[in-house]
């Protein structure tokens, strides 16, 4: 398909950041082409400047970021020299774009049809009724179920995947020569992601567009890319055909990134008989009722439906599922941030589900949690030392002792004792997650629940944190309930895996069983949806 005519040609582009930013340039001397009929993947971790060139193409650079060198040639024209008005005439018409967050990228107050029709309106195409017809045709093309209804729907009435399809419909409405997709599947569940990727690939083939696809995920790259451009710190690290880069990365950074991806390889079953369970969950149920009242009738969501499993001391159990599967609710019930409606949670014989008030508070130290969001999980007003020591202090340990212990823990998680006097905002995401781990360890809990503990992190950082967890598990023989949406991560660290869907346990077994010989269709579906899996399998 690749006919090698560059639709877009970026030449020596340098974009300067405003003063006071952490580096001088968003991108520096970047050059690459995007040709008709190809999908050019721009890959990089957060802060690599991978989206910046796309923004320059669209003329949507953030305030303060300005080009200082180079050119962006589109159809022979340097986009950097266009006036806002000229640029506007290109947007939507000849260059389409889709964004990361389908939940917020659509105007919540406008019907879907009207938002699509706007594209035609912006460029003075078609009459009012024709626009609606075209919009309907587009919705059909992007595969939205019941397009007649969807066209009259408001965005909040659609699922995330459907919204992303609407975004794609809008971007493709006027058959642009170039489509820019900025992390279009990052916010989606893995199965939905697979469908959207499929759709983009399909449309690209059918229309022969040039696609510039920005992502952080090498799995996605493996799924869709014709060519790859790897970026780091605003510079291109490696540029080449997808297969070449994936199979024979020349640059260390690329290699490191690829290695950091949790692989399909499953650790050997850590054999032997399972000892008596530490945690025994029996018939757990939890229903969320949105309170009715004056504005809305009550609604029920069955978050946990008769969930039972056990966890042995020193064992790591992984809970895997897509959003809405109830996996997080399960974790929150186990640490008793939520109270289950029925069922028992026996922790070494104590029924945790029955505890309340002060009794519960005094027992809490036995189960701790590592949270998802490294930014929200630390109080911005407390020094790191206090954040760790507050647990022991709340449980009666004198302050100076608790602080000394905090220093030791910080050493343990690899941050060094000096960190105690610093504030969370002085640390990066990965470092904060280490602090979160130290905080969970401070109380010597019998069980740690890690709720998506690495999903907010860049892949290389993710690998490091997983490594740390693995190390701590060995050293301290931790018992871990590991909740994640990412089957590969689970496979890497867990002994046992439980797959959940809509509040129920679909399948549970050893990591190996679940990963290599899934019994249930849903599990298989999940596994198949993992991007890049086919590629990896081919390599293996």
């Amino acid at each position: 398909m690749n006919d090698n005519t560059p639709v877009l040609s970026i030449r020596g582009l340098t974009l300067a950041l405003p003063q006071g930013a952490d580096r001088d340039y968003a991108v520096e001397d970047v050059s690459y082409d995007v040709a008709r009929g190809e999908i050019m993947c721009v890959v990089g971790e957060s802060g690599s400047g991978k989206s910046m060139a796309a923004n320059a193409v669209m003329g949507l650079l953030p305030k303060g970021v300005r080009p200082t060198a180079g050119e962006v040639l589109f159809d022979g024209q340097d986009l950097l020299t266009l006036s806002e008005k000229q640029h506007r005439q290109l947007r939507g018409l000849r260059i389409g774009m889709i964004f990361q967050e389908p939940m917020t990228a659509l105007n919540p107050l406008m019907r879907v049809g009207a938002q699509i029709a706007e594209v035609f309106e912006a460029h003075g195409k078609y009459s009012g009724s024709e626009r609606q017809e075209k919009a309907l045709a587009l919705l059909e093309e992007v595969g939205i179920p019941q397009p007649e209804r969807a066209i009259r729907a408001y965005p909040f009435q659609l699922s995330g995947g459907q919204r992303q399809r609407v975004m794609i419909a809008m971007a493709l409405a006027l058959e642009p020569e170039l489509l820019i997709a900025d992390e279009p599947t990052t916010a989606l569940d893995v199965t939905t992601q697979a469908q959207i990727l499929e759709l983009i690939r399909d449309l690209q083939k059918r229309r022969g567009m040039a696609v510039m696809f920005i992502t952080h995920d090498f799995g996605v790259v493996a799924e869709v890319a014709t060519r790859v451009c790897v970026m780091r710190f605003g510079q291109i690290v490696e540029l080449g055909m997808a297969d070449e880069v994936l199979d024979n990365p020349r640059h260390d950074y690329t290699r490191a990134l690829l290695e950091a991806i949790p692989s399909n390889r499953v650790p050997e079953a850590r054999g032997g008989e399972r000892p008596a369970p530490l945690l025994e969950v029996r018939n757990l149920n939890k229903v969320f009722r949105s309170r009715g009242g004056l504005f809305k009738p009550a609604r029920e969501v069955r978050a946990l439906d008769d969930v039972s499993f056990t966890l042995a001391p020193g064992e790591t159990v992984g809970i895997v599922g897509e959003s809405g599967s109830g996996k997080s609710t399960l974790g929150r019930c186990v640490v008793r941030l939520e109270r289950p409606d029925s069922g028992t949670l026996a922790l070494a014989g104590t029924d945790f589900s029955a505890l309340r008030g002060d009794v519960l508070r005094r027992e809490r130290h036995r189960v701790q949690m590592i949270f998802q969001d490294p930014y929200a999980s630390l109080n911005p007003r407390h020094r790191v030392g206090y954040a760790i020591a507050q647990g022991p202090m709340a449980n009666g340990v004198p302050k100076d002792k608790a602080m000394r212990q905090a220093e030791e823990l910080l050493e343990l998680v690899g941050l060094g004792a000096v960190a105690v006097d610093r504030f969370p905002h002085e640390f990066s995401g990965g470092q904060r997650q280490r602090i979160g781990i130290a905080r969970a360890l401070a109380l010597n809990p019998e069980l740690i629940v890690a709720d998506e503990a690495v999903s907010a992190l860049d892949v290389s950082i993710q690998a490091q944190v997983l490594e740390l967890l693995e190390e701590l598990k060995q050293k301290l023989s931790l018992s871990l309930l590991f909740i994640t949406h990412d089957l590969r991560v689970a496979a890497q660290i867990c002994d046992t895996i439980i797959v959940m869907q809509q509040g129920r346990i679909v399948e549970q077994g050893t990591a190996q069983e679940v990963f290599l010989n899934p019994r249930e269709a849903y599990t298989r579906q999940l596994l198949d949806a993992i991007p890049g899996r086919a590629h990896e399998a081919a390599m293996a």
Partner: protein
Amino acid sequence: MSFFARFAQNRGALVGLVILLAIVLMAILAPLLYPESPWRMVQRPFLAPLEAEGFWLGTDTMGRDVAAGLMHGAWVSLLIGLISTSVALLIGVPLGAVAGYYGGLIDDALMRFTEFFQTIPNFALAIVLVAIMQPSVASIVLAIAIVSWPPVARLVRAEFMSLRHREYVEAARLVGQTNRTIILKQILPNTLSPIIVLASLMVATAILLESALSFLGLGDPNVMSWGYMIGAARTVIRQAWWLSFFPGVAILLTVLALNLVGEGLDDALNPKLARERS
């Protein structure tokens, strides 16, 4: 960037701060520059500004020095503004915190209570309260506080509701901290910046409210406040514009300054927002 540097980036806020400091200075210097009671009838009535030496702002209906009144009034107006705001915070913050933190029935009950106060028009309620308690500094402060706490409670409640499920708060619960500690140490400090910003605006509103009450004759007759001065000058506004003009400008400047400072604080305390706004 330091707090002050961020604050100073907003030029309006800097101007506001300078004005505010000048007014505070006026209040502090009043007893030194004008040691006599501002009620003293010291000159011919209705002297226009600059008409007689030493009476830069003229004299009022009874020959009292307007400048002296203005200086002493600064103290009263600021004091009423500050105290009534503090009282409103003392009512609103705990209420909002408890409602927002515990949620459920407690929240429901407290919010109905708050709504109830918002259903009676503010100013009307303030008037009735002052009339019932009889006008005095204490009754005015209390009345202003009673009508101005509901927004505080609502703000604090909203902040608490959004923060109580923050992961660091849940972490604090998990390590076994008591609700009291969590409210006071984990959540409250993080709600301070919006509260401070709101409080600075409330001081301004309180000063306006006090002046409106005085205008209707519901001021404390023993203290010289700006509101009193305008209220007293209202009947002679035609003969002696300066009598209501200067205190009017003083109120305007103070309220303006407080608003500017409030905006500056908002910028400085919520740096992210400031960047988006500019």
